[in-house]
């Protein structure tokens, strides 16, 4: 395929959580400065030629209007081109995809991609209020929960997936989260804790759901030819893909899969020339426990319907056949919409360089082939998905 190879040469993230004392601008600035500092051989701000900002719902924190200027204004880079990307839950990863396209095209050599979301300046009621904002009749009462919970019910019905297997996703990701200093939650839970947590949207309980979290994360991309100016251990973009699906749930053919994911990953595998067996570690979109089960099926890591059993067998733990969400995932790290995709890139950048910042050596996954897969799915009708494959191999 005719594109210039792209590398990631710097990554930074802030501690995710309820950042009541921090402005959105301060979150952006912290992620940006941490990212610059994370460039092994250093980088000057003036070397950045263009920027992409991922933020999904700037209205959530009250006053921010949409536009790339929120990013360049907060980091002193007003002047360079900056594009705001909004694309539902894959907002961060789609901003990354567009930044990668910018570099791959040859127009820019060095680009910044930053994602953030200020989720906690508004109330939980304010977020739930989105239930009134879709199509007034056809989407009345639709929230994130009501777009994933019916898939869980149908998956349980067709494949015998159990609430216990769903709970095991939360147990695993909470454990991983305790190893990740950037994770919002830092506590262990048991299957019983998950099953006994309050019902939120049947069949999902509170601990089946990601929290309401503030966060920001950033990466520096450059054309691979110049990557060694910045680091001796660059991570390469092996491929990416984006898939879409129909916007209304009644238009979906199957309610046991997200076909947008299937379409996105097919492109990413094709672009990279890799297959599921070439992937060592996955950061995927676990906004709810059931989502991770659907994802590992849709991404090709097991047969359709086997996701629950793959989790139960422990294959997705760190140390298992295919570690999934070693960062703790959205379930534990949190899901600041625009930041989530970039935060996944940051995690995989560290994992592929084998320099995961943790006191605990158990957090580093074992690399066999040196490839990692990032995935988000969401948006209106859970109808768009972005998959990125990163590799330490040029």
């Amino acid at each position: 395929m005719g594109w210039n190879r792209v590398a990631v040469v710097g990554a930074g993230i802030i501690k995710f959580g309820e950042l009541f004392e921090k402005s959105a601008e301060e979150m952006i600035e912290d992620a940006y400065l941490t990212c610059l500092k994370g460039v092994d051989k250093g980088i000057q701000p003036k070397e950045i030629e263009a920027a992409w900002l991922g933020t999904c719902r700037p209205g959530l924190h009250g006053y921010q209007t949409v536009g790339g200027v929120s990013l360049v204004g907060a980091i002193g880079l007003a002047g360079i081109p900056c594009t705001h990307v909004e694309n539902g839950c894959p907002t961060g990863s789609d901003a990354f995809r567009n930044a990668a396209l910018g570099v791959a095209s040859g127009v820019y050599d060095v680009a910044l991609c930053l994602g953030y979301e200020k989720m906690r300046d508004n109330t939980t009621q304010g977020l739930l209020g989105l239930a009134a904002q879709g199509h007034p009749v056809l989407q009345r009462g639709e929230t994130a929960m009501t777009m994933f919970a019916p898939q869980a019910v149908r998956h349980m019905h067709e494949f015998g997936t159990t609430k216990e297997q769903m709970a095991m996703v939360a147990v695993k990701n909470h454990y991983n989260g305790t190893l990740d200093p950037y994770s919002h939650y830092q506590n262990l839970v048991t299957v019983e804790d998950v099953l006994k947590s309050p019902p939120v949207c049947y069949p999902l309980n509170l601990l089946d759901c990601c929290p309401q979290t503030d966060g920001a994360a950033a990466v520096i991309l450059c054309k691979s030819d110049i990557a060694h100016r910045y680091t001796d251990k660059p991570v390469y973009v092996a491929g990416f893909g984006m898939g879409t699906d129909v916007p209304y749930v009644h238009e979906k053919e199957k309610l046991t899969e997200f076909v947008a994911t299937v379409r996105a990953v097919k492109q990413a595998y094709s672009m990279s020339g890799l297959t599921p067996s070439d992937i060592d570690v996955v950061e995927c979109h676990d906004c709810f426990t059931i989502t991770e089960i659907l994802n590992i099926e849709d991404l090709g890591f097991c047969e359709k319907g086997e996701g629950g059993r793959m989790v139960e067998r422990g294959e997705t733990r760190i140390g298992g056949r295919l570690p999934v969400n070693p960062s703790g995932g959205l379930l534990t790290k949190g899901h600041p919409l625009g930041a989530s995709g970039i935060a996944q890139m940051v995690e995989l950048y560290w994992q592929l360089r084998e320099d995961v910042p943790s006191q605990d050596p158990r957090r580093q996954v074992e690399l066999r082939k040196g490839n990692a897969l990032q995935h988000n799915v969401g948006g209106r009708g859970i109808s768009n998905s972005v998959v990125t494959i990163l590799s330490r191999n040029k």
Partner: protein
Amino acid sequence: MKASIVGYGTYLPRYRIQREEIARAWGGRGRGENAVAWVNEDIITMATEAAQNALAHGGVKPDDIGAIYLGTESSPFIEQSTIGVIGAALGLRPDIDMVDFGASTRAATAALKTATDAVNVGRIRRGLVIGSDCRQPSPGGELEQGFGAGAAALVVGEGLGVAQIDGSFTYATSFRDTWRATSEPHVRLFEPRYSREYGYAKHLTKAIQGLLAETGIDIQDYHHLALYQPDERAAMGVARSLGATPAQMEAANLFPQVGDAGAALVFLSLAAVLDVAGEGEKVLACSYGSGASDAFAFTVTGKGKTTAMTLDAYLKSKDYLDYTTLLKLRGLLKDPSPPAKMGLPPMSPLISREMAELLRPLGAKCQGCGYVNFPPSERHICIRCGDTSFDTVLLPRNGQIHTFCINFYMPAGFDESPLPVIIADLEDGTRHRALGTEMKPEDVKVDREVEMVVRRLATEDSVNLYGNVFRFPRQAA
């Protein structure tokens, strides 16, 4: 030619309050029960279901209806016709006579008179007349023990049908007993005995006497009397004083089970009679409201088509509420938070554009692949195959749950919590998504049968938004 009732249909809400339960809150005693409109029901939704049943019972197509008249005392609006929503939900033509009758519990019989005249003079061939009411009493007041809710619809038309309309007589004076000002939510009553004796009894008696004189038939020769019932005894008192017997009152005695359903009550009582009456039997019906009564004489001429829901089925499929829930339904006990704002207000052009195809759900069936696109106004290119030729199809109202969820955390403005979201496969295989209503979480299961009914989905800036929701088919317990 004399106009006839060619079909009729009723609707009663699922929920009942026992009068004893009201007495527990306020003292006193209570016997029997009242039908109560659920949180997303009003006179528009109840009228819609009753009218759907009436069209089915009469075997009448929506296109054949030349007039729709609705009588109610409890419209949610002072300005804004109730009939726009009902007409769209039924699929009526836009070039017909549409009138709201109001301001009195006699509104539905006044509408029936107008429809009868329109048929008799040949202005219309078929007219739909609906009575629908869910009047709000003051909590703890005298009226609360008796107020019920419901709707009933008659298709009036030329030729023989279910019952011939033999004649009518109206008696109206300046008498005033109940009232509700524009700014007030609750109906008020000056004084019960004064209202019963100088109001109700006098006007009913005069109207019935007038009708008897006009038809030349003695009251004893009417097999059934279907009289408006403001309480347990008043109707019987009038009937006895006119020389009728309790046996003539038996079939229409709905007050113990339904309560005073306002403008709907006489039509409901008439339906109760027509369900059991034999051919050739004579029926006398009489309404009352605000110092006026309309009396009607009928001769039973046949039975209509069998319909899924009869009055008896509505009477038997019921659940009881406690008084606290009743207060919530009436908006007297509520979360003070402002409702979550919709992306577009209910008066938005989007609603006008899509109203008809959403309320009486229409699909655009692709001529290429057969997939039914919904809603048609948003899909001019088939979402499955890209074809651009379609046939308009009516979506079935019944189906089975494909999958679902039940949301326990709804923002203010959603009246039911927990709130089911149902994704169902309809009888023609079309998949459809709507909220569930009147469902207990533990009863919602994959493959269970559901049916679509029109309910109020939201209210914003005092404007109601209506749409279809799924409920379990009503069945006698």
